[in-house]
């Protein structure tokens, strides 16, 4: 499985020279499966540049949305394959008793927020509630489960052969819970992330910042790492960077996280931090990373 990060920022795009290394685009991760099929996790602004990198003759595209906050769907309207008649795009996301996935996304891709409507997109696009049971896309078995965030939000576990990746970019499992001591059956996201080869997880705040943001749906370093430790993740990629966090700030945050992980008894090499355009290729255990320097592990 190959993983490429196209947007690691949370909340709102944060461009600027002080953000160059980690990038300013919001959540979007590309997975290339062993079958060659592409899966896209979330459609933040990073999906725009991802779209330009895809082969023009790639017809079938699957997008898994964790939730519909703007930082996870904002790029959809600017995703180049949406404007090709040959594209067949399937979008999966959380269900809601209130309205269909298409109707909820159309609130964004419609006037006055957008110059085009969903029905005007030339591609063949379909919207699907993420199934309650595992389903298959190409070589991948996918499971979606509700996790603790504000509003209906999913995490995903993608298994390709004996390799598993868990993607929970927005998650506050420690809210009102003693993560360190709580029985695992009471930990949000536990089933999804258990023994994952790679856990891509929310780490929006430092521990010092968190008290001012409790209940906002995101995790501080300690909660992220405690969660990673409880689920037995083999490697963790810190994700969903706060828009105020500059490159140098994130370097410090990464160092703190690695120290904290070491204090928990782990190997600091297991803790990476997501940077735009970074790539990881792994089979079971992550192996060579063509953009290793940008992973900053």
């Amino acid at each position, binding site marked *: 499985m190959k993983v490429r990060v196209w947007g690691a920022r949370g909340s709102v795009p944060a461009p600027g020279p002080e953000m160059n290394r980690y990038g300013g685009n919001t959540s979007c991760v590309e997975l290339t499966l062993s079958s060659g099929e592409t899966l896209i996790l979330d459609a933040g602004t990073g999906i725009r540049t991802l779209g330009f990198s895809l082969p023009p003759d790639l017809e079938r595209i699957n997008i898994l949305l964790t939730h519909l906050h703007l930082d996870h769907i904002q790029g959809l309207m600017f995703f180049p394959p949406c404007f090709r008649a040959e594209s067949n795009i399937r979008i999966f996301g959380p269900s809601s008793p209130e309205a269909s996935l298409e109707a909820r996304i159309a609130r964004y891709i419609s006037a006055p927020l957008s110059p085009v409507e969903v029905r005007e997109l030339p591609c063949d696009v379909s919207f699907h509630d993420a199934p309650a049971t595992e389903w298959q896309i190409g070589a991948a078995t996918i499971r979606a489960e509700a996790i603790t965030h504000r509003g*209906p939000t999913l995490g995903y576990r993608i298994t390709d052969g004996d390799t598993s990746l868990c993607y929970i970019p927005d998650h506050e499992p420690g809210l*009102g819970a003693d993560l360190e001591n709580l029985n695992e059956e009471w930990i949000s996201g536990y089933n999804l992330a258990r023994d994952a080869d790679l856990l891509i997880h929310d780490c929006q705040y430092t521990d010092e910042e968190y008290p001012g943001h409790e209940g906002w749906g995101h995790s501080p370093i300690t909660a992220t790492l405690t969660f990673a430790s409880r689920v037995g993740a083999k490697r963790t990629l810190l994700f969903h960077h706060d828009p105020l966090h500059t490159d140098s700030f994130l370097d410090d945050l990464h160092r703190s996280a690695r120290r904290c992980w070491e204090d928990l008894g782990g190997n600091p090499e297991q803790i990476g931090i997501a940077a735009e355009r970074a790539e990881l290729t792994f089979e079971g255990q992550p192996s060579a990373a063509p953009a290793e320097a940008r992973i900053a592990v």
Partner: protein
Amino acid sequence: MSGPQKPLELILARNLLTSVTTPAFLVARDGTLLFYNEGAGALIGRPFEDIGQLDLDEWTRRFGPFDDDDEPLPFDRLPLTRALREGRPAHDEFTVRSADGVKHRIAASAMPIVGAASGASGAMVIFWPVDENQAREVTTGRHEVAS
């Protein structure tokens, strides 16, 4: 001991109950007592950590409830049962027995918990002593959990 991860709505309900002083139980769809908070622990005389999860028969045997004549209340009359069966809130008053044998008259409101993905997964039962002074102590958190 642990089992499969609970549905998110039960996890969040437990987190909520942990954060409030109003005594409350969290019960699974099959009647298993999954959790009770410190407020409830104060009233029944034992913290949850000492008791753990209990099946329906066990927790009704330990704590009641009882009717006005001190007879065990039929399970199908409990607000909890009505909430689980009918899928709507239910309320009643009855007596429970704490770990030291003392009986408390309580009012209880049960609310079904229905998850977006998993459907009816259980109920939350919030209760408080009918005695005003005791109720004030409990609901304002001025009580201690016996240990």
